[in-house]
């Protein structure tokens, strides 16, 4: 495995592998199969690949029908269209009847980059986690994404899988074992808990390293499953550290930070600081430039850690 890989690449590879083993897997796309990386599945299994064209509502509805008749559909398009444009279809045709549709959404977050605000899904986690029956997973790297797809095939029910466009460094190694709904402690610590998902996991690790110099011992948790959130792990970590910083490539409203606050405010109230896009639309730019401009960096996490620790 290379040291860097986009989670969408891992998705495409996983589909081809799993499609070989399981004939019930079908894949749908909305004219983005080269970008979402479903084209490989389409070439290998043309009769189980359906390009629906530029019609996201129909994409999701068709997937619902395939699931109702026993198939395991992966409906793929960019995150903004999967969740925003087809919200009503996801809610009413997939989640209400709890159908076995996997909504694989690529190009999520600000790291889609140069296309700008219209294509940057920064509220998709909020939309998806507010729907009953929906499971929401945000893999941090290629190794995790591969295993998320394997788990999605095993899991019977609607799942939102948030994937990125840009290559991301591997934070896990080949021995990694993904378990749906279970957070992963990447580094133990006693002074603060940094809870991160997706591309921010790597930044959280870097922040924890930098904080050592300031004498702060941070615990880092990769909380890949945003819904259902691993409450037990979160509560037990916070019982020890008494402060939390959340980090996500998403609007600070309604996403991972909000989910963490919902749990802690009811179970273990502690100071929480959030790193995320601060309730604004993005703009064009390279992924790296945007991450820096909107404060989605290890430095920003470290800064918030200092704030949170002071508030203890």
């Amino acid at each position, binding site marked *: 495995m290379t040291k860097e890989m986009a989670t969408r690449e891992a998705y495409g590879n996983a589909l081809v592998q799993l499609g070989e083993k399981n004939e019930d897997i079908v894949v749908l796309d909305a004219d983005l199969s080269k970008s979402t990386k479903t084209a490989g599945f389409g070439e290998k299994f043309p009769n189980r690949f*359906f390009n629906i*064209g530029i*019609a996201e*509502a129909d994409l999701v*509805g068709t997937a619902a*029908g395939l699931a*109702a*008749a026993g198939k395991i559909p992966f409906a793929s398009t960019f995150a903004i269209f999967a969740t925003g444009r087809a919200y009503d279809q996801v809610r009413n045709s997939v989640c*209400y*009847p709890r159908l076995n549709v996997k909504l694989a959404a690529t190009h999520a977050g600000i790291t889609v980059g140069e296309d700008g605000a219209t294509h940057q899904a920064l509220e998709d986690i909020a939309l998806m986690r507010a729907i009953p029956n929906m499971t929401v997973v945000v893999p941090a790297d290629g190794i995790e994404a591969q295993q998320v797809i394997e788990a999605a095939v095993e899991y019977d029910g609607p799942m939102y899988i948030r994937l990125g466009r840009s290559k991301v460094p591997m934070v896990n190694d080949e021995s990694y074992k993904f378990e749906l709904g279970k957070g992963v402690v990447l580094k133990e610590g006693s002074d603060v808990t940094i809870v991160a998902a997706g591309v921010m996991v790597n930044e959280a690790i870097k922040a924890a390293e930098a904080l050592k110099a300031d004498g702060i011992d941070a615990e880092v948790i990769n909380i890949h499953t945003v819904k259902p959130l691993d409450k037990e792990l979160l509560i037990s970590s916070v019982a020890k550290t008494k402060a939390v910083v959340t980090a996500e490539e998403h609007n600070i409203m309604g996403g991972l930070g909000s989910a963490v606050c919902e749990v802690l405010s009811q179970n273990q109230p502690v100071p929480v600081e959030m790193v995320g896009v601060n309730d604004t639309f993005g703009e064009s730019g390279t992924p790296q430039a945007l991450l820096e401009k909107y404060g989605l960096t290890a430095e920003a996490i470290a800064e918030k850690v200092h704030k949170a620790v002071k508030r203890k």
Partner: protein
Amino acid sequence: MNNLNNERKNQLENTAKAVRRHIVNMVTDAKSGHPGGSLSAVEVMTALYFEVMDVDVKQPQKEIRDRFVLSKGHATPVLYGVLAEKGYFPKEELTSFRKVNTLLQGHPDMKEIPGVDMSSGSLGQGLSVANGMALAQKLNNTGKKVYTLLGDGEIQEGQIWEAAMTAAHYKLDNLVAFLDFNGLQIDGDIDNVMSPTPLKEKWEAFNWHVQEIDGHCFEEIFAAIEKANETKGKPSIIIAKTVKGKGVSFMENNAGWHGSAPSEEQRQQALKELE
């Protein structure tokens, strides 16, 4: 299906009348619901469940079966009335329609109600779902069909036309859609609100096999389904010209009865007409 003798025709007409009585009773008991567009679809739904579809009341979830999607999900009274008559659940259950803690939700819930193949209610979504089911039936070589019922107002939703393209593109000749063309929607005459005409030409342009029939005539319904089944390489739509509120004089052709419940007096009058 071909030889609809008088005896069978009488049976179906009696079933249709019973379903109409269920519709009136359900909506009156619930004090809410959608009688107009339910009454218009009675013959189509009765034909499907009592003559056409290969389904098993004892095994509603049997994997290999024909499937039905009520895309115009508000027409639950006709669906529940037909399912109860068919024996999917006791007729007494109909009195619980739309009440709290009941099986019979205001719009169909496939997870709870035996015989319901798809949850629906948000308009415009059913044809896509029916396409998905038809694709799965083809992949599995079941030889089974998928039927769906669309409302004429419903086809104002853009997703219907996305799905129309998909069904034709994938040559879903195992899909038969009925369009309940009663000409009225909540705000009034469909031609005043947002005209969908010319209908036949539109669907033909989308490469569908199109038929126009009297949606209250069993012979025409059966003949159209037969023709649809003979058509290869194309999905079929049967535009069923119907009367909103059919069978209850004061409801017929009156948009006001789209989504309102009769009073106790009106129930009695309606039931008398449906004896």
